[in-house]
């Protein structure tokens, strides 16, 4: 392949490297956890990975559009505490459905606040969402100062045990998102997204509604964060105002492993979801490989560094030739 073809190829398929990485990580995981492909194990794993998968999908949209959102974890926390306090362990299913609809609106509203400041007030995305992350985290703490609350048993067992056609529920949700993303990419909106993230000035000169697109990415991220919050709540079936704290940076890492450049314009949702699965599997490997507790964080981080650096190294070698 010559240089031009390679460039075009990698720009069109940014998630290819993450797919390769996924295969490698899966093989390693299989080595330390032989029953990995057992139905229950897959379901257990995917159930745990799903919140981050959803969050990374939303973050990918923002980053693709040239921004960044570091408040998504706090939105997860808000959603979690609202569900846990407003529905409760003894709450009836109707109330739960109602509140699930409500938290989706909350997530979009939080995203809209981010989007308003970034797209229309032209504030720096990283600073703005850093500030609003405290706003949202503070709100979550106000709603639920001490861990507690819960959701009806039936919902957590639904989340745990639903396996249509013998496959984990998460697979179907992922498939739905991929379908939706595939459709978006076929529309003008998809093109606008890459254009705004790629070179906003040029997009503006070409009459692309730059601000509206930027705004919409944050709303999308807020919505995905709310979905992620619902998934987390069903997974842990209780409330804690710090639930989403560690998720933010993991979601950004997943996006980058998935081939989306932090400068925007290249990448997509599929890669980000693969990235989230990879991050989950790495944790899995570490817990099954009997690594000394003291070393776990180190090993985890080391693998992530290698995963992040590898695509760059490959391109470096290609250039040398």
């Amino acid at each position: 392949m010559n240089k031009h073809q390679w460039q075009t190829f990698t720009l069109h398929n940014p998630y290819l490297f993450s797919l390769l990485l996924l295969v490698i990580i899966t093989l390693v995981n299989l080595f330390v956890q032989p029953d990995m492909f057992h139905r229950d194990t897959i379901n257990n794993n995917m159930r745990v990975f799903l919140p981050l998968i959803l969050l990374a999908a939303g973050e990918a949209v923002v980053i693709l559009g040239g921004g960044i959102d570091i408040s998504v974890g706090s939105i997860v926390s808000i959603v979690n505490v609202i569900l846990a306090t407003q529905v409760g362990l003894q709450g009836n299913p109707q109330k739960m459905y109602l509140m699930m609809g409500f938290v989706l609106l909350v997530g979009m509203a939080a995203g809209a606040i981010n989007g308003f400041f970034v797209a229309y007030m032209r504030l720096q995305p990283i600073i703005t969402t850093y500030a609003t992350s405290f706003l949202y985290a503070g709100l979550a703490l106000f709603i639920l100062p001490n861990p507690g609350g819960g959701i009806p048993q039936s919902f957590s067992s639904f989340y745990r045990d639903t396996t249509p056609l013998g496959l984990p529920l998460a697979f179907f949700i992922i498939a739905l998102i991929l379908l939706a993303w595939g459709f978006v990419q076929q529309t003008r909106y998809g093109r606008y997204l890459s254009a705004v993230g790629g070179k906003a000035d040029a997009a503006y000169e070409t009459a692309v509604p730059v601000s509206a697109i930027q705004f919409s990415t944050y709303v999308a991220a807020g919505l995905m964060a709310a979905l992620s919050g619902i998934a987390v709540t069903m997974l842990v079936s209780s409330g804690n105002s710090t639930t989403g704290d560690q998720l933010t940076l993991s979601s950004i890492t997943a996006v980058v492993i998935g081939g989306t450049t932090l400068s925007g314009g290249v990448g997509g949702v599929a890669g980000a979801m693969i990235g989230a699965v990879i991050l989950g599997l790495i944790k899995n490997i570490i817990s099954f490989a009997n690594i000394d507790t003291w070393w776990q964080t180190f090993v985890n981080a080391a693998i992530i560094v290698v995963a992040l650096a590898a695509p760059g190294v490959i391109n470096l070698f290609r250039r040398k030739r």
Partner: protein
Amino acid sequence: MALSLSARNVVKRYGGVTALSNANLDVNAGEVVALIGANGSGKSTLSKIINGVVVLDGGQLLLDGQFMEFSSPQAAKNLGISTVFQELSLIPQMTVAENIWLAREPLKRGGVIDRKMIREKSDALLNLFAGTYKSSLHPDVTVTSLPPDEKQIVEILKAVSFDPRLLILDEATASLDSRQVERLFELVKRWKQEGKAIVFVSHRMEEIFRIADRYSVLKNGVTVGTGAMKDVNTKDIVSLMVGEESAENAVERKKAVAQNLSGSSVELDVNELRTDFLKGLTFQLHKGELLGIGGLKGQGQRDLLLALFGDLKYTGSINFSGELVHFKNTRQAMNKGVALVPGERAKEGLLFIRSILENLLLPSWGEYGFPTRMRKARESANRIGSTLNLKMAGLDEPVTGLSGGNAQKVVIGKWLLRNPRLLLLDDPTKGVDVGTKAEFYRLLARLCADGLSVLFYSSDDEELLGLCDRVLVMHDGNIRQELFGETLTKSNLVAASLGASRESMQ
């Protein structure tokens, strides 16, 4: 429908800078109007007002006799105004087809983009320039992997893809080769016959005379002349651009510089210097000479200075004080006594948030040992500060607090501390106040008298005329002309900048 657009008395300010103070332009269907002007005369600003990218502060735009106000590029586009931007409005990561049809993608039912249609239409457009491509330019290549000329062609195709009524070509020929320019001109003639109105912004005088029907000359944001192309020659256009030669020259002529050069040795002997952009430059610089480099912006002046400073790969030979050198990085150049005052002071010349002291000593900390002998360092900094008459509250103040002129003194000062033998200046008086400029000219004269050789690029023609006895005018990566003695006049300088041959000026 036949179109007529006129811009009347347009005013545009950016902060305190007035880009346009009284600009006028009329263009009608079926004609090509050339918009001509020197660097910073406001050509690009005027075209960006017509296509809605910037909003005017005063004056009016009339489209087909109706008062218009474009609030966005979208509004202008809907009225059939399209632009080939000088800086290109392409998204590097997207493909050729995606770029051409961005925001106007043909849709199938359900809002899905019709890829097949896009592909066919793109192929048809690409055929307009068929036979002039070097690589295989097809709709599915990403723009970032294309060479500059093909990017330019994609930008042109993008602008004509929706059949505009008014097409603005802002420096559209700058990166095209002659065959591609030929093809573009054939197309322009065809578009003209189809009844499109075309505004042609270019620096190349010869092209303007070939393609334009009428002209409009801008000087410092004011339209100073309009008329039919057939009534004028190059000389007339140049004299419009230059204006009346003012009796008192803005720059005091420093005759003391470089008088007895015939006796002095050659300090720098450059032979066939080539980079990606430079096309084989050959020139000599004497010891103690102040050699000017002129020409329009972006004709390779920056490349030349960077190559000499070891910051750009080049081929060719450079002989520096009798020694054959080939600098691979800036450190080697520095150690041989070369210094560069870069063009973008804030970005390349200074560590903006650090103190004056740190900036002054940045290239020479090594000489103050480890641990650093701070007192000696401060003494040196103070000494150079007073030589340069640097106005500062103290050495520990941040450079951000300094005015443009004083900040530039810091950039120069940091090199003077190293006692360079060759000083490369990239438009050093840009954004510098008049008083400091005068000081700076005196400083240059003194340094040259002390035997320092200076290569001095300036975008200000007056400065070159006033300070230098010899000026190399660059055009398109080449030295277009060497002006000295009697030939060193403003009209010659402007004409050579525009690439006009000397014959057409007679």
